[in-house]
């Protein structure tokens, strides 16, 4: 098993957005990238962390009273000193409104499988299944593979959503045999810009995409997140389109920017550098779509 125990940030049931049919999505914690626009900031770090949702706080101050480390200033309301916090969980137990919670739970692989099987009749009747997402589900490749294997043995369709930044050999040896469908991101074509906005170069991602495209090992879908001024630039999208065409990829999904993550980032005490707070306009979306003319677009928007 992996050095660090892989944690689950959330299991989202009844998801209709992450693959075919009705699905449960497992969001793992930890990701090799740190994209400036990351939609799931609670999944970036591998360890557990304290989350404070200001909108739910009733201001009772119970958290400050119960904290043994004095990590929460009197009156509460999210004034948390994360240096002092030991993640003991006393404040989350005491919080009456669930404004405070600890993100990150560990499941034994078989327990996770059992939990996910609760909704099997819905998967079966809708052509759905389980989506392993994150964060990055390939960070804990052995663990993810054990879960995927357990699910497949029980007849559940398994989809992996990945950033593509993984060791192909480990992936092919452990996880791939237990996966029905892979969603892989192509964010930025330029290696330099990729590193600037995600913290990592993209050579391994491109190599993995080429292997997926050429191997027919598994069904896959390339997804392009549209982040205004970062990925959704004319130059980047044109480069991605050209790069994909050369490799015979003609089916993609475009994911329009969703600003709702900003509040989540704040609730973890982060102050993100990228801060667009509005949805994309019709025109912005259409401009992006136009660049991908000739591609089959999964789910129009």
């Amino acid at each position: 098993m992996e050095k660090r125990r892989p944690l689950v940030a959330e299991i989202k049931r009844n998801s209709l957005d992450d693959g075919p049919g009705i699905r449960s999505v497992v969001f793992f914690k930890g990701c090799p990238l740190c994209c400036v626009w990351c939609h799931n900031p609670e999944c970036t770090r591998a360890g557990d962390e304290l989350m404070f949702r200001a909108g739910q706080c009733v201001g009772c101050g119970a958290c400050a009273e119960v904290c043994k480390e004095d990590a929460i200033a009197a009156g509460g309301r999210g004034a948390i000193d994360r240096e002092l916090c030991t993640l003991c969980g006393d404040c989350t137990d005491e919080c009456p409104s669930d404004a405070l919670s600890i993100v990150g739970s560990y499941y034994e692989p078989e327990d996770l499988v059992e939990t996910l099987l609760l909704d099997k009749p819905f998967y079966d009747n809708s052509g759905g299944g389980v989506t392993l997402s994150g964060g990055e589900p390939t960070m804990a490749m052995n663990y993810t593979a054990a879960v995927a294997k357990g699910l497949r043995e029980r007849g559940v369709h398994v989809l992996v959503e990945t950033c593509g930044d993984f060791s192909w050999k480990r992936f092919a040896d452990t996880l791939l045999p237990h996966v029905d469908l892979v969603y892989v991101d192509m964010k930025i074509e330029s290696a330099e810009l990729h590193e600037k906005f995600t913290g990592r170069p993209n050579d391994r991602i491109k190599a993995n995409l080429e292997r997926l495209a050429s191997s027919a090992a598994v069904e896959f879908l390339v997804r392009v997140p549209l982040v205004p001024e970062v990925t959704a630039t004319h130059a980047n999208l044109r480069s991605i389109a050209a790069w994909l065409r050369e490799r015979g990829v003609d089916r993609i999904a475009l994911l329009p920017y969703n600003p709702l993550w900003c509040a989540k980032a704040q609730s973890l005490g982060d102050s993100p550098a990228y801060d667009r707070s509005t949805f994309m306009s019709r025109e912005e979306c259409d401009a992006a779509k136009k660049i991908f003319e000739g591609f089959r677009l999964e789910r129009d928007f």
Partner: protein
Amino acid sequence: MTARSQVLSETLTPVLMDAVLKGLGARAALDRKFRANLYHDVGSGSEPWNAKVVFRTRDGSLQRHMVVAKGRIRSGRGAIAGADATFVLRDRAALKKMLVAKPAESMEMLLRNELSFEGNMSVVARVSYLLERLTAKKQPDQNPRHDFLYKSSLAAPVRALASRKSDAVEYLDDPSFSEWTIEDFPRLRGFLADAFSTRPRISTERPRLLTEHFKRHGFEKTRDGKDRDPVLRQAQAYKYLMENRQPRIRKGDLIAGTTTDKEIGVVVYPDLGGVLIWPELYTMHVRDLNPYIIDEQDRRLLTEDIFPYWQARNLREVARTNAGNPECLKLDERFVLYFQWKAHSLSHTIPDFPSVLGKGLGAIAAQAGAAEASADDEGKRNFFCAVRLCCEGVIAYATHLSEEAARLAAAETDPARKAELENLARICAKVPAGPAETLEEAANSMWITWVACHMENTNAGLSIGRVDKWLQPYFLADMRRCADDEARRATIRRAVELIGCFFLRCTDHLPMVADLGNKLFGGSSSDQAITIGGVLEDGSNNVTDMTYIILKVAEMLRLRDPNLNARWHPDVNSVEYLRRLCEVNALTGSTPSLHNDKAVIAAMQGQGFAIEHARDWSATGCVEPTSSGRHFGHTNSMMLSMVAPLEMALHDGYHPLCREQIGPHTGTVAGFDTFDGFYRAYLEQFRYVAQRSIECNNLFGETHRFVRPTPFLSSLLDGCMSSGRDVVFGGARYNSSGIALIGLADVVDSLMAIKHLVFDEKRVDFATLLDALEKNFEGYETLHARMLNKVPRFGSGNAEAQRIAQRLIDWIYDLYQGFPHYRGGHYTTGYWSMSNHVAFGTLSGALPSGRRKYKPFTPGITPEPGAKDTLLQNIQSVAGLDPLKMPNNIAFNVKVVPDPHDSPEQALDVMTAYARTYLESGGMQMQFNVVSTETLRDAIEHPEAYRNLMVRISGYNAYFVELNRELQQELIERNEHALKH
């Protein structure tokens, strides 16, 4: 209230009260027309109305009386002995308010317990009417309704189903008829526009003819002083009504006969609850919700002639007199604990249409005639005679329709219509007297019989049954007579049009709803349930051509009534059929509702129905199963608040809103050491309320035997003809009464909160919790947040909440099964609420679940919207409950919203998957509302653009714009589940 206005109330109220009473006296003395209100028109002459009425505040500090005698009104201070009715006001301010309030506002006062009544409710209604007349001005009429048809976001594409023929379909190649829309049926399009632009009018035809008959021949006794046999009496009056009512054929219709003499008529049943509309006769045409027009001559007829006759003879007052105004009746009139339907209707059953179609009423009359001749006792002889008279009356009405059709045909210049009318003349001469042979004859036979049913019994929940099963043989016969494909196509098209006409005929009447009813049953129509699909008596597939024809009609017309209910048997009916049901539901917004045939049949078998009779069930009124044509199950005999006993258990039997000790002393909260101790107190309070409600139901049921035997309906329920007994005497083959229990999730969530916070975690002591409820959580924000967030709820998948729910359901089932039933048979329990979850909610304080004061309860068996997590847990929790313990069925609401970006295919896939999984997991019933919160909000702002926006409440459909605001809000606050992909 400010100090100044309090002083004004104190001093001015007595002055105002005296002035009003003096005013009444003066008006009676000076105004001849007004004086006419103080007489009964009995037989040939007028008799004075005598009554003593008291008005008093609850503390007795202000008391006045009025005496009506010999056409005069006098009044005075203090109470008076032997009052017929007493108006009890909470305080002087409430009395002042009542004197200046509109009828709708005094209803509000009643529901807020500022006002209550003692004694004869009809006298109360009549006095309220007089007070209203004294102060009311003539109200101008409102604008007519708009004919603007809202279309759902999913209105456009209808796809062909799988090309193969599904289920037991014989002829249809495309069971969803994807090429047809309403525009292809101009006749239906026209009727539909009329249905939405015609304003309902009060029809006095029925009560006028019946009252006329009884005045001439006597009610209790004949003119020469002999006791009248109630069964025979009802039949004689009924025959007179049927022979003398207008035979009307709507212009252009393929089906003859109308429920009333108006285009859309409101039927009055003064022998039941009709008298309660009295105070509103001059305001009902301008009331906010569901205004009815009434003509001046009808007002006068009701006030001076009809209502006075029934004032002491209606069911409620006869029951009161016979039983000495018992406690159970007084509790009914507080509205807080339970609502008894028997005082308003004998309905909620399914007549035996197959007998009418197969052999005809003539054969039933002949059978009754033979049995009458050979009957061995007078009771049976009278009963059979009564059946014969009723059938003869209906046949006479059909004959008059035939004559009317012939008359119209003779005058008709358009040859096509002339041919239709000549055909109708032929059909009405043939059916329902004789057997039907074609679909057109069968549809007319059913409709005329249906009109006849409503001339006898209240148009509230009386239901039509398995129309697909019963009409399919006639459709097949028509198809077999076709020579070629073209003829077959025309026959199928004609079948759609004919069923469309039948559906639209069903919209020609509305129930008489007092403004109080708009509160209690907002937007409800007659709830004429039609049931399709499922299995036949032998277990084989009943999804046929006719099933799909009915679905097409429902899809095109999008009517709230008939209330379409679809049975789906997971082992027998196809998934394609389920998908088509979901599609029609998505296109119409809220119909049909879906039932798990397997679970309902098992539940009915648990009640002693033979398997073939259990399989022959139809939904009744809202969702309740009745074995078609052989079962008098009065499935909505009463609706009971599960929350009221909870509030009583929290207060040692005292009801906080009623401000009265109602239940037994079960201890104050300080005395409960364990959760189980409190739980037992709740059960004891529940048992007390249930017992009173059963007493009340039995009292009304027994009173029916004198006031309201129902021989025509009896002729259409198997068992009565062999036993020679009317249904009110238990003549039907199967007997039961159904209960709707309201507020399950609120009670379970409250019990969970008490268990967790008071006993398990000891977060709060019980007395403090009670104080938080008393203050509606003000100053207790932290505790309130904890209730809402930290206590697992029913519907969240939490095992403990699920256990408490099942334990309660089991206990309630056993309790009711143990009650004696006046007709034999059982009391069956179910969990659906019409709109009473809102009404009972307005009568309840804050709850430990975190629900605030006066807010609606959750509808039916639906989990509270705040039960966390997703629809899947809701589905699994509800499906996990034992259907055998809920034999009167449930209503589970799910609001889904298709994303306009998605293809209807994808949205339908998801909807079908939800429904299929729920039903396969054992869930009994589910109903989708396919509408967005945004649309509902817009409809509140712009009601004129959403005239036909249909929503499902809890078991029945309603037009959203006709609902009261609380109910609209409840629908908006329901969880919304996106159907995006």
